[in-house]
């Protein structure tokens, strides 16, 4: 136990006046201050005797002692990041649990290149604390944001661990350029390009953010409006996600934390296929409907030359072989601490997650070192360095007939899995699922270094110069071997190997000026520059014809071919911003960034991205104060412009001819793309108005935003007449708008002094996306299922609209859009889109003494999903190698039947399942709304005394369920699905995709 340093000294000098000593019975008070959530001791907490300057601060074990002046019995206990408490000193030891400060409005938020008090913020920025994320069993931090931040739409593309995530901040601005936000980890702009080259059914194979260990994260800030993002200029249009990792604190005893959990996951639901006998009945019916001879039914007795009677058919279950109870393990050991001069955080983690669909796995080793050192009073240096090694055992699903789920889902259920001789049986285009599970051998090993070193020098009181040098080195090494037991390995084994490398080098200088003029004026200004260079390279090798299934290296192949590719881009930027605040009541921000990109021609290279923001804290005005209602009331407004150049090729502006068009093994060249020397920045104008309010003694907090974005000069692949020999050219043409609002409401249901603490945060957002201008409609996706049209949103489905099934004939009827009396492509129309009307989430937490209980919900309402599983498995007989979903049993059979499943037939004239319609009917387009209980957790923090007996500082145990419950009208396995994530301008296709697992986990956090 040690007496405080900082406050105790003045206490002695000034507070304890000689007069006090003259009085009698100054009493000693001791006590311990702990964190209310995890019961860990809190060092550095200020304890002051109310009404005096007498005080102390707690030591590393959270304890304090001070001498109470006579007549004083009340202590005020305060610490940064915690709610202050006032307690009575009643004689015995004082034990206080401090609660984390949930009054967001007073916190400090990380903004672009600086930090700002939320009070003076004029931008729309959402903050998520690392603590809220750390227990969710997902590999990557972006997925953890689901439902946590208003206006941020997050959904996993599939349930594959370490797989891609769809994330949009306030909608999609762009058609061809990227719509992903910029991720900045401790000041490093990181690459977010999938490096896995192995084709996996058009799914984005990996999420590069899975290289970041969520447990290292201190906080995530999401910059949404132009005022917040314009400082990132051309990188900012899609929003910016700032990830700050944990750092040591000065004067902190080294704290060692061990955190582990184990989870068990299963598919929440399974596909429902027809049985063998049912399949045979359907096939016979189809045969008769097609005018077949009743004596020649395909499923008649074997004796008469048939495949056996329907009732003789077996039913084979393939899906149970694919889906398993998958395990997740996470281990994390970290140490944080520091002296006045040097602070550190070191952490190491291991995470392993199996996919619920065999045979995919993901694991990750991660290390992090964050160091800060004050070399002198003025000079500070430091680093944030993370090393990660990931390993994925990938396998194909989605749009790939030889994918694992496909090969289990699509083959007819009456067909045996094995041939009579015991070999794997394969049908149609499909592989044998068990052959794939047993033999797939696709390894992808990623190595990642994200590192930053900085030096920071303080000139005088107000001026700070910072220079930082960063690298993001991302490497992916893939080795695939397909042996002869699977189709991909036909006929004598095939192998591919890829080495892909994506490197970003970044140098950045900022000069920060911060000053308060008197009491009322504060000014923060910053200028800076960055130089960024990105190189991407890939070397690929392939081999065919292997001597045996055991020789898997390409060196053994009879035929070996190789290739390599390389590309680079540079970005040069200058930027500045200033924030002026008067009495913390009126705040004005201005910022400007100038970017030059190598992707554009010399004349169009520079883009200028300005923004202004204004904030007015009405709650500081007398007339509001007098109302005595608002603890905080602030109006915000901002407008600005950001740019985008991501997603186009590095040399998109140039007219190019490419090699590789070989013939007779002679080198050939062929035109690649048309020149567009006028190509320039895509830019987004955005304005935002917002309101922050706190009422009922800050127990109810409200944050509102309304925004309007207009992106013009789209970097668009504008279709050109194909007679030119080209299909499109990249032009700045077209416009997209996004308008919407965001609401976040936080309620602390009970007074902060009560033993039970209960808080709920609810957020909801609406975004309306619209293509404002387009040269000509553009189709995208498999079978051109999507179409971009002026006036419609992106991700609009372009299908035939089925009006019903004629109850007399059993044939499907479609809307004759152009009214010409016949069905043609002109009758395809936009029948819905993949955008939710509303989306959001609820986070609820209750604590009582050592117990904590919480749940999170997230929801989307109104998005459509194209269910390709039904498209294929409700095929009316047109797919001779594919089985049926049970839904097919609801088909029309006889006049008078009321159903929307037309009669079985392969006759194209009926257009029931083929013909002109090609089965592209909105019959398979479904409402994908859902409300999901994302997490449900219960934890217990062992009282400190008990933990101490085990020589532990703290101990928390918890159980959690993830995706326990999903309420949805969607008929597929999982409404959170995006099977064609690798295909531009598509969303919400469900196609033999791994669903989000339902997971039960137990975990323990130990403070050593």
């Amino acid at each position, binding site marked *: 136990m040690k007496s405080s340093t900082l406050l105790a000294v003045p206490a002695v000098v000034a507070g304890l006046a000689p007069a006090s000593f003259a009085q009698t019975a100054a009493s000693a008070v001791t006590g311990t201050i702990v964190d209310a959530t995890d019961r860990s001791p809190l060092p550095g907490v200020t304890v002051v005797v109310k009404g005096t300057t007498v005080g102390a601060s707690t030591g590393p074990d959270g304890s304090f002692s001070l001498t109470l002046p006579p007549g004083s019995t009340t202590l005020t206990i305060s610490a940064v990041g915690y709610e202050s408490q006032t307690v009575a000193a009643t004689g015995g030891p004082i034990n206080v649990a401090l609660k984390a400060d949930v009054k967001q409005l007073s916190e400090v938020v990380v903004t672009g290149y600086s930090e700002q008090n939320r009070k003076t913020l004029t931008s729309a920025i959402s903050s998520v604390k690392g603590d809220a994320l750390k227990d969710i069993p997902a590999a990557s931090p972006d997925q953890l944001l689901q439902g946590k931040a208003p206006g941020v739409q997050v959904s996993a593309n599939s349930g594959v661990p370490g797989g891609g995530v769809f994330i949009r901040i306030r909608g999609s601005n762009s058609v061809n350029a990227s719509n992903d936000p910029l991720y900045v980890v401790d000041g490093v702009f990181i690459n977010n390009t999938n490096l896995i080259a192995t084709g996996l059914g058009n799914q984005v194979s990996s999420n590069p953010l899975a290289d970041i260990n969520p447990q290292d994260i201190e906080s995530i800030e999401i910059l949404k409006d132009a005022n917040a993002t314009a400082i990132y200029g051309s990188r900012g249009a899609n929003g910016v996600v700032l990830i700050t990792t944990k750092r040591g604190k000065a004067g902190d005893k080294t704290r060692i934390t061990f955190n582990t959990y184990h989870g068990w996951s299963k598919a929440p639901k399974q596909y429902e296929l027809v049985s063998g006998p049912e399949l045979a009945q359907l096939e016979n019916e189809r045969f008769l409907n097609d005018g077949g001879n009743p004596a020649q039914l395909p499923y008649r007795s074997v004796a008469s030359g048939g495949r056996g009677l329907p009732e003789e058919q077996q039913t084979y279950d393939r899906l149970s072989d694919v889906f398993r109870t998958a395990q997740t393990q996470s281990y994390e050991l970290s140490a944080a601490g520091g002296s006045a001069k040097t602070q550190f955080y070191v952490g190491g983690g291991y995470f392993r997650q199996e996919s619920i669909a065999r045979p995919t796995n993901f694991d990750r080793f991660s290390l992090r070192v964050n160091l800060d050192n004050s070399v002198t009073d003025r000079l500070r240096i430091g680093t944030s360095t993370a090393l990660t090694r990931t390993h994925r055992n990938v396998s194909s699903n989605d749009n790939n007939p030889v994918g694992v789920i496909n090969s289990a889902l699509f083959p007819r259920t009456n067909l045996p899995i094995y041939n009579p001789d015991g070999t794997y049986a394969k049908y149609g285009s499909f592989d044998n699922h068990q052959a794939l599970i047993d033999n797939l051998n696709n390894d992808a090993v990623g190595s990642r270094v994200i590192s930053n070193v900085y030096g920071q020098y303080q000139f005088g009181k107000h001026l700070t110069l910072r*220079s930082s040098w960063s690298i993001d080195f991302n490497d992916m090494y893939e080795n695939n071997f397909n042996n002869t037991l699977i189709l991909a390995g036909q006929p004598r084994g095939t192998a591919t190997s890829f080495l892909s490398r994506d490197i970003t080098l970044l140098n950045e200088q900022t000069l920060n000026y911060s000053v308060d003029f008197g009491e009322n004026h504060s000014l923060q200004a910053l200028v800076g520059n960055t130089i960024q260079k990105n190189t991407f390279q890939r070397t690929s090798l392939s081999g065919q014809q292997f001597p045996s299934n055991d020789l898997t290296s390409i060196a053994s192949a009879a035929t070996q071919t190789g290739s390599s590719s390389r590309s680079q881009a540079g970005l040069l930027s200058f930027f500045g911003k200033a924030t002026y605040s008067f009495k913390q009541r009126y705040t004005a921000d201005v910022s400007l960034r100038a970017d030059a990109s190598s992707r554009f021609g010399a004349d169009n290279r520079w883009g200028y991205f300005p923004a202004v923001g204004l904030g007015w804290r009405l709650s500081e005005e007398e007339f509001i104060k007098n109302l005595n209602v608002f603890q905080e009331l602030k109006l915000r407004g901002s407008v600005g412009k950001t740019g985008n150049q991501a997603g186009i090729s590095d040399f998109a502006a140039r007219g*190019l001819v490419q090699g590789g068009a070989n013939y007779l093994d002679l080198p050939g060249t062929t035109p690649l793309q048309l*020149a567009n020397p006028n190509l320039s920045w895509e830019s987004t104008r955005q304005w935002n108005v917002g309101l922050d309010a706190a009422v009922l003694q800050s127990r109810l907090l409200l944050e509102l935003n309304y925004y309007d974005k207009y992106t013009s000069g789209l970097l668009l692949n504008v279709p050109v007449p194909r007679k*030119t020999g080209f299909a499109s050219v990249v032009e700045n043409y077209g416009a997209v708008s996004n308008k919407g609002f965001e609401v976040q409401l936080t309620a602390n249901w009970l007074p902060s002094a009560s033993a039970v603490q209960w808080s709920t945060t609810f957020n909801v957002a609406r975004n309306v996306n619209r293509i404002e201008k387009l040269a000509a409609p553009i189709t995208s996706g498999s079978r051109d299922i999507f179409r971009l049209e002026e006036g419609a949103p992106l991700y609009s489905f372009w299908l035939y609209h089925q009006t019903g099934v004629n109850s007399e004939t059993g044939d499907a009827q479609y809307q004759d859009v152009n009214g010409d009396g016949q069905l043609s492509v002109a009758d395809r129309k936009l029948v819905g889109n993949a955008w939710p009307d509303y989306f959001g989430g609820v986070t609820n937490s209750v604590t009582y003494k050592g117990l904590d209980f919480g749940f999170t919900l997230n929801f989307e309402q109104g998005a459509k999903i194209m269910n390709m599983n039904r498209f294929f498995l409700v095929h009316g007989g047109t797919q001779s190698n594919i089985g049926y979903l049970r839904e097919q049993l609801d088909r029309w059979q006889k006049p008078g039947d009321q159903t929307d499943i037309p009669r079985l037939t392969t006759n194209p004239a009926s257009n029931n399942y083929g013909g002109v319609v090609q089965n592209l009917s909105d019959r398979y387009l479904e409402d994908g709304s859902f409300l999901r209980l994302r997490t449900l957790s219960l934890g217990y923090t062992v009282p400190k005394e008990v933990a101490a007996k085990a020589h532990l500082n703290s101990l928390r145990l918890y159980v959690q369920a993830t995706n326990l419950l999903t309420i949805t009208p969607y008929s597929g396995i999982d409404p959170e699905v995006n099977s064609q994530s690798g295909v531009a301008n598509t969303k919400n296709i469900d196609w033999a995709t791994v669903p989000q697992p339902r997971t039960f986990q137990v975990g323990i956090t130990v403070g050593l």
Partner: protein
Amino acid sequence: MKSSLYHLLFAAVLGAATLSFSACNDLLDPTPVQQLPDDQAITDASSARSATIGVYDRVQAYYQLNWPVLGFLPGENVRFNGTLNQFLQIDQNQLSADNVLITEAWTQMYQAVNGANNVLAALPGLSDPLLTATEKNQLLGEAYFLRALVYFDLGRGWGGVPLVLTPTRTKENGRGIRRSTLAQTYDQVLADLTQAEALLPEAATRNRAVKAAARALRARLHLYRQQWTEAEAYATQVISSSNYGLVTPYRAISTAPFLSRESVFELTFSNSDANTMWNNWFPSALGGQFNFQPVPAAIALLNDPTVGGNRSALLATTVIAGSNVTYGNLYSRSAQRDDPSYVLRLAEQYLIRAEARAKQGKLTDALADLNAVRARAGVPASTAATADALLLAIEDERRVEFAFEADRWFDLVRTGRAGAVLGVTDQRRWVFPLPFNDLVADPDLEQNPGY
């Protein structure tokens, strides 16, 4: 220490600032290492050769899968057994304008045209001592031939098409070029073939264009235009060349190393430039996807000793789950992936001449040509005695001779028999739809009626 550290930091900042200006040009003007600016693509002998090879590559692209499919799948020999509706539409003669295979073929074909136009525009003005007049003529001749082939295929597929004859540099190039008539399209093919024949070498190369390839295509062009004397004359020129002869057995055409004496023009593939067509024909037990399955009637014909003869080699059989499964075996090089695409064969020249002669009343000569093809297949000679019987015999012969090549559909459309034989009675459906996407992008285009 403090000041030296300060200097160090200052130097770093200064260094970075200097770097940002001096390296500015490097940073902002990277040179592509994988592509060439389009105006520097054909500058010397070597780049001229590469550009010509590039045109072959584009022709290979549409002949590898899409063109054969559009030739055989609408016919009655093969059914589609896979999952992709665009193929099913073709099989069921129910094409719609949003058929993605149609779009892809159309796009690839105009890419080939643009490649040829680039060669034809750049080569005449090119002077490089390493490029001899002979080679220059050869490259020009090849470009003319390949452009003729593409426009011929476009014409027989879609009817008259836009005739673009100069290289594209901007998207405005070609603006205002509307669809020509089929006759104008074929006239252009003829003009190109005339140039090609004059420029190409007289040689026996079979996977690059030579004079005989131009003549053989010209014989086919005249057949399609019902110009019987010219068709006969050009077919005769090819047939009488000592470089070509029918090979026996039939399977020898498609046996490695290919380039048989019968081949007038075929597109060669290799393991590094792979033809995966086999994958569409082989059952999954053999590693394929079994997308194209010969129908029982075709299997019966090919296996009939009086009809198919040794053309039964187009089929093979394997045992799957205890029962025999017959599949197409023309494209069979699953390991080497070097099956060629067959474009012009001598057997076709015989059948062109047979038909041209029959149309001119030269029945004996016509029958002799037909029987030359039949004899090679090991089937008894035809005894067709009338012109009509002979023409029908020729049609039937083509059905088995080119069973899995790009022929049957175009043949029946050409003779006006697609309605009678295939039941496609709506004559508007005898040409393919123009891709819907292109109609939207190109105001000069007009859709074929009926789509």
